[in-house]
């Protein structure tokens, strides 16, 4: 173990405001992102809370229909573009990628800082839109409603997302180049931790899908401002073209959210089962396969939108294929647990929760990819439940697990382990209580985005609101005990989990330049000693 040197770590290498706001240190930029996206998360969560209060009763009595539309739109817009998309890549990715590669920093440190400022400017535009009354189109911005009829801050919001998109692109490019060029001596591609593989796959999507969204939002904005008819059927435009381009980005975007979480799970499972990952290569290639297939399945969002039946058939078949690499991962993680020496620390509880919830989310995705069944459950709470199982049960559980796993590395301190475990468990319970009833309500016909509903659905909605309250506590507690730990927690030491991986071989928190010398790698990832079966 390397001795601690608390005076020279990245947290203490300069205390001025400019040493933070002008930093090019990937670790400090990760913290800047952590604070920003945490703020956005709780803002969007507040919108969700208001939605859940409204839905307690079948009548629309808490907010007006108009306000309700704005609430679910702002919830979606901020959660997706200002929390989920940046979450793991910009916080854990920024912090860990150079450490895992044995590098001093990312390939383009100044661009990395620029990406945070661009993200922040995009966020300010979106907040300005919120102050200007919000936006009521749903996060999908479908024309012609968004371009010709909506009486809300569409252009301002679209501008915010457009700007934030460039921050995504820059992060993606930076990660791709870094992984190619800054691996430590001996760190070959197949010795990389799987978290790096998932970041690589994610970065490919960030770099190749985001520009399509950018141009699309630009078209929506100019159509709205100038009355041009690119997507307006009354002016000869094709609204379906918008949907094609939108989902060409937005379907891969789901994999931007879930892939890094899968990486976190691979790191966590191996550490807390004290085993090498079962099927390293198949897990690595599964990440690339998910990223690749992700670009070929967008049409499954348009089965009922008037798309040709032959297109739908092919999109349906391709969507089923995504299940294969996803299942490979789930089976590999499960096989890793087999005969492992398992300890159920906080990060492990999140990882196990992820596997269960992701499996449900993935399998219900197959329901939706089936042409016939989709007609019945399209635009119902079934869809809402499905994508929350992927995005919250999958992506956010992975993010929370990752934060807990690497917290001692980031802060140099331990948190209260019992609080951590308790929170992981109530998050899991609260999540299921919130979203499982929505599968049932959706299957029985409860449409999404409705402000009032048939009283027969009230029991399901009540359970959801109850669960959301528990889930909310699961997100508030870490704010308290991690915040406390940051200043008062006991020192963690370099490697509190006794984990493999380069990031654990430098002090916690790491020194400004990460390693005292360039590390040399001569073994594969997850080199945990195998226990005799």
């Amino acid at each position, binding site marked *: 173990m390397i001795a601690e040197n608390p005076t020279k770590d990245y947290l203490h290498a300069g205390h001025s405001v400019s040493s933070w706001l002008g930093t090019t240190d990937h670790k400090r930029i990760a913290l800047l992102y952590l604070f920003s996206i945490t703020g956005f998360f709780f803002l969007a969560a507040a919108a969700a809370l208001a939605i859940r209060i409204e839905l307690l009763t079948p009548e629309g009595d808490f907010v007006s229909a108009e306000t309700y539309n704005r609430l679910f739109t702002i919830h979606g817009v901020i959660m997706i573009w200002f929390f989920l998309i940046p979450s793991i890549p910009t916080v854990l990715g920024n912090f860990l990628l150079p450490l895992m590669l044995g590098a001093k920093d990312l*390939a383009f440190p100044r661009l990395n800082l620029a990406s945070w400022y661009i993200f922040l400017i995009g966020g300010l535009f979106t907040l300005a839109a919120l102050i200007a009354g919000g936006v009521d189109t749903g996060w999908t911005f479908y024309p012609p409603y968004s371009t010709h009829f909506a009486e809300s801050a569409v252009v301002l919001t679209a501008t915010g997302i457009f700007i934030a998109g460039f921050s995504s692109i820059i992060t993606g490019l930076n990660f791709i180049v*870094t992984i*190619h*060029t800054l*691996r430590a001596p001996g760190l070959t591609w197949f010795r990389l931790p799987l978290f790096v593989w998932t970041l690589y796959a994610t970065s490919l999507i960030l*770099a190749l899908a985001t520009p*399509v969204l*950018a141009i699309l939002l630009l*078209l929506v904005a100019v159509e709205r401002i100038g009355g041009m008819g690119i997507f307006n059927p009354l002016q000869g435009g094709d609204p379906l073209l918008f949907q094609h381009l939108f989902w060409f980005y937005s379907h891969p975007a789901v994999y931007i959210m879930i892939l890094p979480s899968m990486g976190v799970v691979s790191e966590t499972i191996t550490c807390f089962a004290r085993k090498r990952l079962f099927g390293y290569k198949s897990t690595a290639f599964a990440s690339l396969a998910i990223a690749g297939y992700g670009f070929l399945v967008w049409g499954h969002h348009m089965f009922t939108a008037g798309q040709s039946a032959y297109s739908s058939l092919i999109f349906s078949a391709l969507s089923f294929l995504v299940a294969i690499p996803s299942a490979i991962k789930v089976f590999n993680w499960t096989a890793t647990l087999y005969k492992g020496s398992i300890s159920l620390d906080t990060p492990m509880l999140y990882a196990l929760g992820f596997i269960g919830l992701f499996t449900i989310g993935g399998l219900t995705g197959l329901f939706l990819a089936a042409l016939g069944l989709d007609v019945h459950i399209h635009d119902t709470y079934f869809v809402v439940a499905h994508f929350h199982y992927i995005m919250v049960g999958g992506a956010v559980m992975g993010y929370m697990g990752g934060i807990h796993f690497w917290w001692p590395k980031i802060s140099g301190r331990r948190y209260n382990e019992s609080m951590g475990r308790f929170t992981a468990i109530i998050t899991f319970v609260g999540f299921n209580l919130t979203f499982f009833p929505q599968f049932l309500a959706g299957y029985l016909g409860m449409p999404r985005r409705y402000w009032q509903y048939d009283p027969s659905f009230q029991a399901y909605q009540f359970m959801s609101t109850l669960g959301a309250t528990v889930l909310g506590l699961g997100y508030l507690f870490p704010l308290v005990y991690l915040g406390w730990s940051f200043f008062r927690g006991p020192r963690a030491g370099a490697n509190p989990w006794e984990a493999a991986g380069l990031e654990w071989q430098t002090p916690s928190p790491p020194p400004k330049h990460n390693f005292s010398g360039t590390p040399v790698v001569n073994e594969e990832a997850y080199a945990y000693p195998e226990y005799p079966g």
Partner: protein
Amino acid sequence: MPILNTLDDQVAASGAVGQFPDRMEERHASFMGMWAFLATEMLFFGALFTAYAVYRIHYGEAFTQTSKVLSVFWGAANTAILLVSSLTVAHAVRASRLKRKAECGLWLGTSALLGLLFLGIKIMEWATDAREGHLPWGSLGFNPPGLHPEAERIFLNLYFIMTGIHGLHLFIGIGLLVSLAVRMRRNRLSDAPELPVEIAGLYWHFVDIVWIFLYPLFYLAGR
């Protein structure tokens, strides 16, 4: 380009450049960054080309008719200007590799001037279009040139958006070349001046290639 994985390379790392072990790796990373960025740009324009393709299939006849309102002469002139500018940029890259800084600055300046000439002609074309009522927006007095006002409106929408975004890219390119030329003149570039010139050159050629597609799609569609 060798991937850094031997101990020899680690020894060579004594000549580290920032986070890079050596200058070769910095060069490798810079090129890869620009190529990856150009892939992003391809998808950016790709969405617009997709929109063009969809509407060309919907409204083929009207598209070819409307394209006749554009001036082939000025379109062709601009194509020639951009192609020549790519040649001058290639000369700038060559001069930078030979460390001939003054010559390189001259070529960069020439290329930037050609870019400005292109933009000047483009703006003149847009102004002519506006005078003749071809601006397809709101209450700007759109005067459809033919019998399919909706399709003509979409053609002209796409024309203004795509050439506009291309023009913006060119404008950024001109800024890049000018700043490089100035830094070259003031000797502000490192002892490897060819790296930023080559990177900016890649971008310039890309913007040129986009125009190579825009020109036939809009100006030659009806001929």
